């Protein structure tokens, strides 16, 4: 593909200079995929990639979540692909997606075969409700950390409260995120050029 060499500056520097190995990415994503249930993955992802390993800042992680909200696909999966791409380009993104899906795929396959042969869904109501408690806590923990590190100005806090009110009134999440982004682009533009 010769035209790729012509525009080398379109590849973000972070894509090749992060120093995070594909093996480390695989390990973390396997862990996220094996322990995060649904939205809970976002919490595990943040704890592993931001809090523990500092692969990216809270701000960069929040940017990834913003992107994940605006694009199709489960939020946590999009966030994982974003992290993978940011750290190691296309190979990082691919490794992250596959490693994230392997535990779920293997377990789901086992359950499917069991179900189609025995016609039963395992009765784990209690355990499932306990897991949901953990998921709620994981998601709230992410909201708390992002809120604490990123909502620095009064307008942003006001916007967060308004956005939550709109969400409670069943506003479409994509519309909500877009609308807040437009408000930001109009009213929250930094005075000087932001240092990336």
């Amino acid at each position, binding site marked *: 593909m010769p035209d790729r060499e012509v525009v080398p500056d379109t590849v973000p520097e972070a894509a090749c200079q992060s120093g995070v190995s594909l093996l480390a990415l695989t390990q973390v994503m396997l862990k996220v995929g094996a*322990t995060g249930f649904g939205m809970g993955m976002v919490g595990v992802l943040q704890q592993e990639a931001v809090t523990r390993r500092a692969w990216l800042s809270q701000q960069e992680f929040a940017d990834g979540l913003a992107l994940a909200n605006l694009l*199709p696909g489960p939020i946590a999966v999009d966030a994982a692909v974003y992290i993978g791409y940011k750290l190691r380009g296309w190979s990082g993104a691919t490794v992250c997606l596959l490693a994230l899906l392997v535990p*779920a795929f293997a377990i789901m396959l086992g359950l499917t075969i069991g179900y189609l042969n025995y016609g039963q869904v395992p009765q784990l109501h209690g355990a499932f409700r306990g897991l949901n408690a953990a998921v709620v806590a994981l998601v709230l923990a992410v909201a708390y950390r992002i809120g604490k590190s990123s909502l620095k100005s009064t307008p942003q806090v006001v916007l967060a409260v308004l956005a939550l009110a709109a*969400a409670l009134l069943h506003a479409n999440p994509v519309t909500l995120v877009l609308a807040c982004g437009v408000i930001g682009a109009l009213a929250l533009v930094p005075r000087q050029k932001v240092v990336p």
Partner: protein
Amino acid sequence: MNLLRLVWIFAKIGAVVFGGGFVMIPFIQREVVEHYGWLTQQQFVDAIALGQITPGPILISATFIGYKVQGLTGAVVATLAVFLPSFLMTALAARQLSRLRSTPRIAGFLRGVLPAVVATLVMAAITIGRAALWLDWRLLLLTLAALVLLVRYKVDAVYVVVGAGITGFLVER
């Protein structure tokens, strides 16, 4: 022919479901139950239930549906197809975002988006909590304990998740 159709349907689903979770259920149901008749209504409900008790995205229910249609190959193909569109879009957007982040307008956009992201996270927690924990003080207590362990003591999420599952199992036995 089924395999190609499987790829097409699941790529289509993957391209239009936002936020994952429960938003996608009616859409998938329309395609695989009503339109193609690959699953009965009961099987579909059970497939979603299995997707919930499996770690990872709930959209992994695609594995079930793919397997039902075309065995192991179908399972692999459906799973990859459903995540392919968002994978491509996210990677391409991540590439652009790193470049555009320093433009003032985009920086302003992101500053505005952050409060919305926090709000959608809180909303997701409320939605999941309402469905699963509503008015059960033991589970609310468990949620609170998990939150304190995660935020205050930075306990590894693995222990919190496993501990919560075991606690729920013991409490409700």
